[in-house]
């Protein structure tokens, strides 16, 4: 079984530019989560999809972040415009509806200069 796949693994952009991160969850996993770890801090929840619907987006920092999950398969997280404080590692995780354990991807490292 393929795991959770994230792309790109590392992105370096200038402040003010736009970046789109992609997550492919494990096939059949209806639940998809985005988390973020900024330098020196703990991993923090951003949002949760159930299929294509946003179940909980209470962790999204501001309206520069837009998450989508069209068709309930892969998800994208767009940051526009990027700020310096957005630098960090963005993790995606998924789980099936009957399970309680999240499977994480390797993360996408974002560096904003």
């Amino acid at each position, binding site marked *: 079984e393929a795991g959770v796949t994230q792309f790109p693994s590392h992105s370096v952009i200038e402040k003010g530019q736009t970046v789109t991160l992609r997550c492919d969850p494990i096939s059949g996993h209806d639940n998809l989560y985005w988390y973020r770890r900024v330098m020196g801090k*703990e991993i*923090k929840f951003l949002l949760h999809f159930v299929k294509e619907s946003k179940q909980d987006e209470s962790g999204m920092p501001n309206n520069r972040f837009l998450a989508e999950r069209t068709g309930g398969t892969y998800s994208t997280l767009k940051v526009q415009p990027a700020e310096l404080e957005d630098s960090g590692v963005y*993790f995606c995780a998924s*789980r099936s509806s009957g399970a309680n354990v999240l499977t*994480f991807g390797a993360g996408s490292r974002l560096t904003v200069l």
Partner: protein
Amino acid sequence: EDQVTQSPEALRLQEGESSSLNCSYTVSGLRGLFWYRQDPGKGPEFLFTLYSAGEEKEKERLKATLTKKESFLHITAPKPEDSATYLCAVQLSVAGNKLTFGGGTRVLVKP
């Protein structure tokens, strides 16, 4: 405010030197406590879930325990391949399966 605190932040062990990692939590309505292992450049990898005080889980050299206020991850006779960051996370009753993480403990086991 819900808080999860892990200690120590870093731990250096000699191969074979057993030790324990602590995860203390102050939350309302604990649904479950999770331990994950994270290697450099990778995502967190699931180890254990504990649901009630007194519960224990074991896997190879690792043993996790849970009380009403904290959890311990005991590493018995560690090997260099046990070097990693160990993350503790809590799942709250009203939080829809989302996890609140602690800062992690970086463990280095020297041969």
